[in-house]
């Protein structure tokens, strides 16, 4: 990592603005905490529909994280180490879901995998129906979460450099062996934090799921969709479930950040 040069001269006014920025992030969470109906908290988050939504969210997010790793690792490798025409274009497209409104992603998925979609018709002939199924939820989550894994891993690959791989190759190791024995162990912390971020993004996925997968308890109604629906009639339940999602997200992001910090010194050892 970057060595501290001993210059700590951050102008004081920067702290003031930073504090405003920090408050903008923290205050809404505090406001939500104040709205939680604590005596009813446990009954609210353990109702049948809440448990079903939480269970579905955890299962689909785990599945989409696995899918992100399977597809994202090769993508990151190709983007970081490969050289081919259209590489920059590919990178832009992989990053697109980061800035795309989720509902747009949902529409795009609909026109790809939906019944009338690009691939949907062939899939239907093959007896595979994705719309209104849990698979649609996983697909939507993977679509929005994949960039997080690719970005983290590509960054890790670039900062790790390829010296060790070059040594291994001169010693006669085949590319697959180099990848398995040298490259992947080297970037494992980056991969782990990327996977954790993908999981967190999947957990929070809402727009694409709503547009593409529908909303049915136990099948497609994940926690964010359940919150959106409960809000119509039972604000207390919506707030309680939101808090659950916040706690899980904080834990997940904290875990990822903690890992990155503790692994940082290892990356710079010569």
């Amino acid at each position, binding site marked *: 990592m970057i060595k501290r040069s001993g210059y700590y001269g951050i102008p004081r006014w920067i702290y003031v603005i930073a504090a405003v920025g920090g408050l903008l992030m923290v205050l809404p969470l505090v406001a939500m905490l104040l709205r939680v109906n604590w005596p009813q908290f446990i009954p609210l988050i353990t109702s049948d529909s809440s448990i079903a939504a939480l269970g579905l969210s955890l299962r689909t997010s785990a599945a989409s994280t696995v899918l992100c790793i399977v597809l994202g690792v090769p993508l990151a490798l190709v983007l970081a180490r490969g050289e081919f025409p259209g590489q920059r274009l590919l990178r832009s497209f992989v990053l697109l879901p980061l800035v795309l409104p989720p509902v747009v992603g949902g529409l795009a998925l609909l026109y790809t995998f939906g019944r009338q979609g690009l691939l949907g018709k062939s899939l239907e002939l093959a007896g595979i129906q994705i719309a*209104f199924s849990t698979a649609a939820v996983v697909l939507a989550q993977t679509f929005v979460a994949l960039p997080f894994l690719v970005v983290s891993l590509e960054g890790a690959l670039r900062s790790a450099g390829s010296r060790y791989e070059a040594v291994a190759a001169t010693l006669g190791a085949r590319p697959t062996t180099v990848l398995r024995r040298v490259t992947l162990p080297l970037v494992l912390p980056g991969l782990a934090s990327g996977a954790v971020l993908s999981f967190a993004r999947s957990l929070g996925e809402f727009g694409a799921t709503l547009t593409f997968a*529908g909303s049915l308890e136990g099948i497609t*109604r994940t926690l964010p969709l359940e919150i959106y629906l409960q809000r*119509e009639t039972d604000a207390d339940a919506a707030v309680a479930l939101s808090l659950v999602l916040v706690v899980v997200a904080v834990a997940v992001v904290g875990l990822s950040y903690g890992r990155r910090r503790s692994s940082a010194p290892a990356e710079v050892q010569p």
Partner: protein
Amino acid sequence: MRITRKPFATVLVVGALAVSLGACASGTTRPSTGSASPGSSTSGEITVFAAASLKTTFTQLAKDFEVQHPGTKVTLSFAGSSDLVTQITQGAPADVFASADTKNMSKLADQGLVDGTATNFATNVLEIAVPPANPASISSFADLAKSGVKVVTCASQVPCGAATEAAEKAAGTMLKPVSEESSVTDVLGKVTSGEADAGLVYVTDVKAAGDKVKGIPFPESEKAVNTYPIATVGTSKNKELAAAFIANVTSEAGKKVLRDAGFGTP
């Protein structure tokens, strides 16, 4: 070396930030300069909060109103009725509230935010919406329960879902939807995109969708009529103009606009 002007710059930046934050916070407030000469119902501005299903009709009604009352300005805000109630109770500056069901109007009245009593101005019933080709050959409510038919409905928490439940009871047919959406627009979207074989939406939604869907009326819908009430919001600063707008909605001309869109009269 310290530059003495630094603190000033700090104040400037923080001040600018505070101003812009303040502007953000009051983003929903209509410019209160409204020049409303109090007491006169023929000038000033009002903000009308109306259920999403009223978008087309109320846009038309507001335009007519502005033409008939020169010098007035009607700002419209459309969303789900329960969202609007939440916004008004949180202090959003609404003068008129038009709800898609009586339940949400009562919710607002319970908070003491309805001026006088609400007037029922329209009704809406459910209709089956199918893709133009009607791939599942739906012709009655009972057809929706056939196996293999992908039907999408509203969830019971929202008004159209409550109406769906009432229709199910009246027909004695329980549906097994593949998805229970949280808004009627989402149901319609699943039908227009061809994902669903059928959806239960309001007759006005079918009409507004034009030839993108085909509507199939069913007799059981008579047992699940949604009534739309309208009222002046208690915190309105221009109640006279608000009342004039409501009078315009409930007038013969207003009724015609609503009727043309498929609404019924209560």
